[in-house]
């Protein structure tokens, strides 16, 4: 019933067809406002989904490819055990590089807890070895066995213990973001359906007259569909622009802010919100079309 020819007629516009349905001031404003508000929310849901997605990828990827070995040994054996562990790592499959952290680096890591004046060389602080894996990854169980045999003080931490819940949380967050977008689209559909039904009911007499003079259902429906599609579209354009401005005004990402300030769009992702008005228009088009078809079929 509503094919591409109708769609192009819809975009091109038909002033005559528009005029046969009387204008409606107040409800039109409400539809515009609701579409704008939904688009504004959709921008944030989209930003959340994309940011959570980046986070999940980053944690899943970077952390999955790194591990840490702690050498817990008396001060006099620490150096020797570190060297032994490093030489084992050199012959371990799946290890791209391994390097012991220097005193200065360990000091920087501990400074937030113990202050900058900590004398590391006098304390039995474990030595840390940073292991970067190749893309294929290594076999942590096998490495643990070899380390246990030759370096008694070595503890391998492949990060999976605390990484997995984080990656999971980020993925969940991303899922929630996309679900919000689906819900927002459904809410727009519901709102447009209500508005279109109200408009169709209010114009029952107009529709009856149009039918009597030989108008097809298609023609009548188009007058309503065009209105609501354009209202939803322009409302969503406004809401999207405002939402994007709000995202732009968020403080920019920094190490200290972590996830919160990473909320926003990066690179090509800035193009995603452009889809929101078109999605709103498509939802309104379908919702009004369904409402009109249903109502018109019931009329004599």
């Amino acid at each position, binding site marked *: 019933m509503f094919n591409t020819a109708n769609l192009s007629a819809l975009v091109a516009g038909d002033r*005559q067809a528009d005029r046969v349905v009387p204008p409606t001031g107040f409800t039109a404003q409400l539809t515009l406002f609701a579409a704008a508000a939904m688009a504004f929310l959709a921008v944030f849901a989209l930003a959340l989904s994309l940011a959570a997605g980046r986070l999940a990828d980053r944690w899943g990827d970077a952390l999955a490819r790194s591990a840490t070995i702690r050498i817990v040994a008396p001060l006099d054996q620490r150096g020797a055990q570190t060297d032994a562990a490093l030489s084992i790592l050199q012959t371990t499959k799946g290890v791209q590089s391994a390097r012991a952290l220097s005193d200065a680096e360990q000091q920087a890591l501990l400074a937030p807890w113990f202050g900058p004046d900590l004398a590391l060389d006098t304390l039995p602080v474990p030595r840390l070895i940073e292991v970067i894996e190749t893309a294929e990854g290594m076999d942590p169980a096998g490495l643990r066995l070899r380390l246990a045999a030759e370096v008694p003080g070595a503890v391998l931490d492949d990060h999976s213990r605390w990484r997995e819940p984080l990656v999971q949380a980020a993925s969940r967050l991303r899922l929630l973001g996309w679900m919000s977008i689906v819900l927002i689209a459904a809410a727009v559909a519901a709102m447009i359906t209500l508005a279109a039904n109200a408009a169709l009911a209010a114009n029952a007499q*107009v529709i009856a*007259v*149009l039918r*009597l*003079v*030989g108008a*097809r259902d298609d023609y009548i429906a188009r007058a309503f569909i065009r209105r609501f599609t354009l209202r939803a579209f322009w409302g969503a354009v406004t809401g999207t622009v405002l939402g994007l401005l709000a995202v732009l005004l968020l403080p920019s990402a920094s190490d200290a802010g972590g996830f919160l300030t990473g909320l926003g769009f990066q690179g090509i992702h800035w193009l995603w919100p452009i889809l929101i008005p078109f999605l709103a228009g498509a939802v309104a088009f379908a919702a009004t079309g369904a409402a009109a078809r249903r109502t*018109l079929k019931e009329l004599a």
Partner: protein
Amino acid sequence: MIELENVAYSYGGGELLSDISLKLAPGSFHFLTGPSGAGKTTLMKLCYGALLPTAGHIRLFGADVRGLDRDDIAVVRRRVGVVHQDVQFLDHLSVTDNISLPLMVSGRQAETQSGDLGELMSWVGLTNRADALPPELSGGERQRAALARAVIMSPDVVLADEPTGNIDWEMSQRLLRLLIELNKMGKTVLIATHDLSLIRATKAHVQARVLRIANRRIQLAGADL
């Protein structure tokens, strides 16, 4: 054009019309009379597909009405001009727009620019009310506008339900002359009216048949009119 075969109709209670057989041949001119409530309007509605018969068959332009979908009905209505007893317009559009509405909705709005529309408006005497809104019209002006709207598509059949109910003798004569002229151009005309003097006046100009609804059936009225 329009054929009824043993048609019966009931609104849910008893039968209002029974066993009606009628053929509106191309170029014919019919009057339909009968007491108020006899079913004249109902019969007209059957003729333009607004009601489906409860028994019997109706053929519009050769097709059984029961087989027509909503789009087919719309197309039938472009070929049948109807002046409704309770005329309804789009109250937010001017008289001109209302009269050219059938052209608009059938994708022929280009023709609204032609001189025919102006000519038609002056024929029904509405030229100086062209920009008025329907609620601002008098009863007679409404009926003239309704007739103009019914004939603007140059339909094959014109059905007029009490077209002269609200207008004076002078104006009803003019309307009738328009209908007679349309009939002479080959259009089929059916007019429902109570006004016997109108029927008599018309018979001087055109060969008209008079149908009367009585006792739920349709009869050809005698020459006594």
